[in-house]
């Protein structure tokens, strides 16, 4: 049986520039894997290709979710099947209150899966509970999504959306960057609270810092567009000590 997320020999390019180079990765349900790598290694590209961002051309390989070909699906169809991307740079949506956006998204996913829509009171109850745990002021959710939010607020808003949408596969792209130590702890607790036997998470990070709070089951090193090393949590500590140079050379 294949893992929840199975990536095999995935190659992709953007604007004629090859970025992912036969990347392989297996992420079983219930596990949290970290992807670490130097700037420009292709970490965000991997997250974009898996979530279906337009502009990337897959030139080889495959990616499946529960055995189903992900790459053939529109981004919204992937979302409905449970793919969630916490953006490295969350986008501002002027004129759309965060609550409206989140409710529209949740109900769109429910409709796509043939489930009943969530009633307004149930939705508000759910959001209030999740926002409280992430120390997000409820009034902030009435403001246009991410407009004028600080870097930390934007990242917490990503985690709130993840908590409400309850994905099967969460990809967190440098959710730790730009966070102070308190915000980092809150975000990490939010992520840990979402660990579940039927859910998997891919935590992309540049630093080891976040992994002190989110203990990954495995750590992969991405360099030059492919996974060049994999190991247990101790690999993150080794990277922190020795840097990426050794692995970059291997790519």
């Amino acid at each position, binding site marked *: 049986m294949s893992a929840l997320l199975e990536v095999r020999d995935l190659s992709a390019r953007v604007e004629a520039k090859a970025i992912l180079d036969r990347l392989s990765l297996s992420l079983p349900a219930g596990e949290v894997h970290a992807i670490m790598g130097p700037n420009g290694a292709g970490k965000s590209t991997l997250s974009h290709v898996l979530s279906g961002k*337009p502009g990337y051309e897959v030139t080889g390989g495959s990616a499946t979710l529960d055995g189903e070909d992900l790459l053939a699906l*529109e*981004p*919204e169809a*992937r*979302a409905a099947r449970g793919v969630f991307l916490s953006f490295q740079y969350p986008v501002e*949506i002027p004129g*759309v209150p965060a609550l409206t956006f989140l409710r*529209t*998204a949740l109900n769109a996913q429910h409709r796509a899966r043939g489930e009943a829509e969530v009633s307004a009171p149930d939705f508000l109850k759910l959001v209030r509970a999740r926002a409280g745990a992430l120390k997000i002021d409820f009034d902030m959710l009435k403001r246009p999504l991410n407009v004028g939010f600080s870097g930390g607020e934007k990242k917490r808003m990503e985690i709130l959306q993840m908590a409400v949408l309850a994905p099967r596969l969460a990809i967190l792209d440098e959710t730790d960057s730009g966070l102070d130590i308190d915000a980092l702890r809150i975000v990490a607790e939010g992520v840990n609270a979402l660990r579940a036997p039927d859910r998997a998470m891919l935590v992309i990070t540049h630093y080891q810092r976040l992994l002190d709070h989110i203990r990954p089951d495995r750590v992969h090193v991405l360099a030059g567009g492919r996974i060049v090393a994999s190991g247990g949590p101790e690999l993150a500590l080794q990277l922190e000590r020795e840097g990426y140079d050794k692995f970059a050379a291997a790519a």
Partner: protein
Amino acid sequence: MSLAEALQHGDLTRLPSRREEDWRWSDLRGLIRALPPAAPAFSGALPPGPFAARFPAERLCLVNGRGPDTIEIAAGENARLGLRLVAAGEGQGDGEGQGGGEGYVGRLRLTLGAGASLVLLQTHEALTGGYLAQTDLEIVLGPGARLERLVLVADAADAVAVTLSHVHLAEGATFVETVLTTGARRQRLETRLTHAARHSAATLSGLYRLAGRRHADLTSLIRHEAPQARTDQLVRGVVDDQARGVFQGRILVQPGADGTDSRMGHHALILSDRAEVDAKPELEIYADDVSCAHGATVGALDAEALFYARQRGLSEAEARALLSDAFLGAVLDRIVDPELEAVGRAWLEAAVSPEVGPGAETLA
């Protein structure tokens, strides 16, 4: 040269043509091959108009241009009123607007006495198609009078419709208008406003949301003839498919209109590579100590925002509608009267929602 003249004289050569500077993007001469018969008086019963529940006020109706020719709000009076401009001819048109429809010209004079106040919901409704119509409104505000109108234009897709409003502001008068339209085969919504005495104020807002092959032309000429008057204009539009939006805004500050404060903005989103927006904002200033500004942008929806919304599960159509709606919402924020604002928001929701499509005829 006007559609009204051409219809009244049965003379095609009196139609405005592309050779006229301010009709070059809304040519009627090249579009209309034959003038239709005059629309008959309407004998049936009108269905209740849109938003009867949300805006409960007396309704006056002009059907096929026929109806009252004056509305007077006496000095000091406060009123709320609905004005329904209804096209209800017998013909159906052939879907292309060639023949079949009827033609009519409507005229109405609306006066507000000194200190009077009116909140007006003006709806353009189509019970038929293929019509050629011009409606001229003359709006005269006495000293200190205040008029706010919300204009909802739901013309038939194959109609040709011109609406021309002449607005005259006396000292200290306030005019607030918000025009929302889904366009027509060819449609011109024009406001010519004169600040005739000092301290008058005009807030002009417009929104066009066009799909299919629809066209809408929002044209305005604002004349500052007296000192210390204000104009604040904002028009936003979204065009999809093969639709075409036109904005022509001209603010003229005459000699002696010192201390004028006027600003104009036009911003449009183009959702399809076959859609088009033509814009011409103009400021002409012949006075001193004037504060004037204008801004104009035409662009596409933000691709990053589109992907972000789709990643969260919105379909591409839903994401485009959500972002377009949000972009246009800035116009509705300018409506002052809360009931009118609620009507405007409900109208936009219906116009943007992919399931409902354009047209507000069935709204309660």
